[in-house]
Every structure is written in C-alpha cells, then in structure tokens.
C-alpha cells in the first residue's frame, strides 16, 4: 500500500530536496531513539509526508551524524520534536498493522515473512499503541472493515477506499487547532483514498492473474487487467477529484517552510505517479538499472 506518495525531486530546487532529506533522516533517527534499530526499517516517504504535515511552519534544529545507511558521509538530520514523535508513533502502528494484514492475507508458508517481521516490530508496536491508543483503535477498526469488504467482494471502490482513507485521516486527530485539524483530515483522507485506488490500479494485472480482490477491476468490469479507454478516463477523473481536494485543503493552512515540497507533490508529483501507474510504467521505473542512474545523479549533486 505504501510507496506511491513521493516528492518529485527533480522538480524541486536543491534546497528543498535537502530539506526533505533532513526530515526523512530525522524521522529515521526518531524511530531509532524511540523504538530501537529494528523500527528504523519501516521508514518510507509516506511516513515522511506524515511528519511534514504534522510539523510546524519553521524547520527545527538539525544535527549531523553517520548512520548505517550512510556510514561514511555525515548526514544532516532534523532533531525530533513533538510532530516527528507523533509521526513516528503513528508510523509504527501503521507499519505493524500492515504486516499483520499480510499475515492474514497469506497462507502459513507465504505469511512467514510477515509473521517474522511483525514479531520483530511487536515491542515497538506495543509502546506506540500505548502512546496513541485512539489511533491504534481506529487503525484496527478500519483494517477490519477493509478486510470484511474484501471478503464480501465489495464492488464499490469508494467504500473500500473510504476504509483506508478514514484510517489515514485519523492521524490528524491528535492536532489541537480545529481549523488545522479539518485541513489535515481532508488532506489525509484524500491521500488515503488516492493511495488505495492507485495501489489497486497498480495491481490490476497481478490480481487478474491471481483472482485476488481488486475494487477497481470490479468497478469497471476489467477482467483481464487491461484498461478500456472509457474506464481509464473515468478513473483518472476520480483520482483528480481527490487530488483537487488535497490541493484545496493544502492552500488553507500555512505549512511554512514545507510549502514548496507539499505544493509540488500535490500539483505535480501525484499526477505523475498516477499517470505512470495507468501507463504501467511505474513498477518498471522503480527497479533494475535505473538504480544505477539514480546513483549517478546522486554523485553529481
């Protein structure tokens, strides 16, 4: 489910990509301090966005350190603050329940990986659940709802997406300011909806072959995992409505230094990911020799 929300790094000035890196590394360090080394492996861009959305208008203090991912070069990272701690707690809960979901979805043998990883994350999860009982509870409820909908082969993609969208939207509940809460809830709800739908679209072919539940295939009657022009147009329109809801909510709160990153994500990045998924080029671009290329870019910057 995770891995679709990404910053369009090439569309951002270097100053902004470095800022993104600092909070990305900061969240990693926060996870390490609070939950131990194992928890650092759950880090991803989506959780970084959660930290950004929960952060204040100013960027906090930063330090630099070496770490296992960058053992030679010292990397600057943001020192934890309340927002990053909250993002870390919520990330642990989300990651844990996603792994448990993997256990449920697979047979004993194929579920081994998920069972093992969730066992490793279990102590971290227990602590996080104690710190954010409300979020833990709502995550559990929503995932149960989602798995029920999957079992009954729910053909309404909105209903299925809603279960995940509400789950993510709940991450905004810990915020005090009522206006900020409304804004964040709308952003996170539609981010969740968008992620869920894009993920389902990305799995069209795979699910068509395996016969797994896919709400997008059911909604548009796509049996072989191939888009019809009409279905594709309708699906893109529904994604655009969600992106529009995120963008309009984003404009109603001052995100301070994080504004450029969020702005390019909502007005550019999500469109590109959505299009790549619809074109079927999203996965291919993620692996193999492209990594080499990314390394070259990294070295030249």
């Amino acid at each position: 489910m995770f891995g679709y929300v990404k910053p369009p790094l090439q569309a951002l000035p270097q100053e902004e990509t470095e800022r993104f890196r600092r909070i990305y590394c900061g969240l990693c360090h926060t996870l390490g301090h609070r939950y131990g080394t194992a928890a650092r492996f759950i880090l991803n861009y989506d959780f970084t966005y959660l930290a950004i959305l929960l952060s204040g208008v100013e960027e906090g203090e930063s330090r630099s350190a070496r770490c296992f991912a960058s053992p030679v070069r010292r990397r600057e990272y943001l020192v934890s603050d309340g927002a990053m701690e909250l993002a870390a707690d919520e990330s642990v809960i989300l990651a844990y329940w996603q792994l448990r979901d993997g256990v449920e979805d697979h047979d004993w043998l194929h579920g081994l990986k998920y069972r093992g990883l969730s066992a490793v994350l279990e102590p971290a999860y227990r602590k996080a659940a104690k710190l954010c009982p409300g979020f833990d509870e709502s995550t559990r409820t929503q995932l149960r709802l989602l798995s029920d909908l999957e079992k009954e082969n729910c053909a309404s993609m909105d209903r299925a997406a809603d279960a995940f969208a509400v789950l993510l939207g709940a991450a905004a509940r810990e915020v005090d300011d009522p206006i900020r809460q409304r804004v964040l809830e709308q952003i996170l709800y539609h981010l969740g909806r968008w992620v869920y739908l894009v993920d389902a679209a990305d799995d069209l072919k795979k699910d068509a072959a395996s016969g797994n539940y896919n709400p997008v295939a059911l909604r548009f009657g796509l049996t072989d995992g191939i888009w019809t022009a009409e279905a594709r147009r309708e699906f893109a329109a529904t994604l655009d409505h969600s992106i529009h809801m995120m963008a309009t909510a984003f404009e109603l709160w001052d995100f301070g230094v994080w504004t450029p990153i969020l702005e390019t994500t909502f007005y550019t990045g999500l469109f590109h990911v959505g299009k790549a998924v619809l074109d079927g080029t999203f996965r291919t671009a993620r692996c193999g020799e492209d990594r080499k290329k990314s390394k070259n870019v990294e070295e030249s910057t």
Partner: protein
Amino acid sequence: MNDPYQVLGVSENASDEEIKKAYRELARKYHPDNYHDNPLADLAQEKMKEINAAYEEITKMRSGSKSGGGSYGGGYGSAYGGYRGGSSGGYQQYSGQSASGSSVLQQVRVAINTGNLSRAEALLANYSDHNAEWNFLRGAVCYRRGWMDEAKRYYQTACQMDPSNPEYRQALEYMENGTRSAYRPNGGQFGTELCGGNPCLTLCCLWTLCNGGGYWFCC
C-alpha cells in the same frame, strides 16, 4: 487586521502591477469556483474576504497618496467584486427550492448546507421515492464525504431521470470535467492524464528514474 501587504504576499514597495498580479493569483486560488461543494469552502470564503479587504485597502491607500490611483477600481476590483459577499459560495448551492416540492428533500438540502451529512443521509435513507432529486442529493452527500465515484453515478442517474434539469446537469458536468479548470500555480493544467506535455514529460522521466524506493537517500 493583518498587514494588507502581508496578506497579498508582496512588499510595501511593490509596484501597482505586481500587487494586481499577486491579488489575481490569490483570487484565482481561493475563488468559490475552486471550492465548489468543498467541505472547506467556508474557510476559503474567509480567505477570499481577507484578500479582497487587503487589496481594497492598498488600493485606497495608494489612490489617496497619488492622483492617478483611479485606475484600480476599474480593472480588477469589479471583476472579482461579485464574490465579496460570498453569494456564490459552495454551501449556498442547495438552498434553492426543492424541485419536487418535497419537504423532506428540502430538509436534506438544509442538512447538506449546514454540513450535517449524517442527518442528510438518514433522511434520504427513509425517503422511499427515489426520484431524480433524491439521486441528485445522494450524489451531493457522497461528494462531500469524498466518495467521488458514487457521487458521479448518482448524478448520472439524476440526469437520466430528469435530463432537462440544469442543476443536475451542472453537477454531472463538474464531476466529469470540473477539475480541469482547477487552480494550479503558474497556470498549468490540472489532471493526471494532462501531464503528458513536453516539460512535464521530461520531468516525469527524470524523476521516475531517480527514485529507487528510498535508494536515493542512502547512497
């Protein structure tokens, strides 16, 4: 009130042209059309008022100190003046009379306007005549809940049942093409399928190549 220059995001030394440009950009962003049926339309309306007041104040200040200040009122003030009172805010849309004259459906409209979606849903669930208006209002509730696909399908049914109704047609048209005219900074087009243009495509390629699932940061 806040400093009007700060509200428009310009310096006090900005030229009249720059101020007008900044105002125009903000007015486009917070325009009621961009917050059509949006659950946060009330917040956008507040923003719009603030921006209008700031622009008006700067205009007044500058025309007081200069003789040629009259040029302000004409060009832009009047163009966006109509939105000042919030008469076209998204929430007002359903306050019109119920087409079928049903008092229950009228109550549904009121509930939607006040943001009480659970009440609107309950009233609709108990209303047995699933006519065009019922479908339209179900669509309106779905839209506000973020169920965009269901919203569109209810609007479609409403239009099929009553093809001549402009309210239903407009709602369906918005679901199909509405986001194309949505605000995007620097005037670019808004849409997943519309990002194929040249500058976009280059960025897109560059960008997908450079993201190896977190690898970018670790090497």
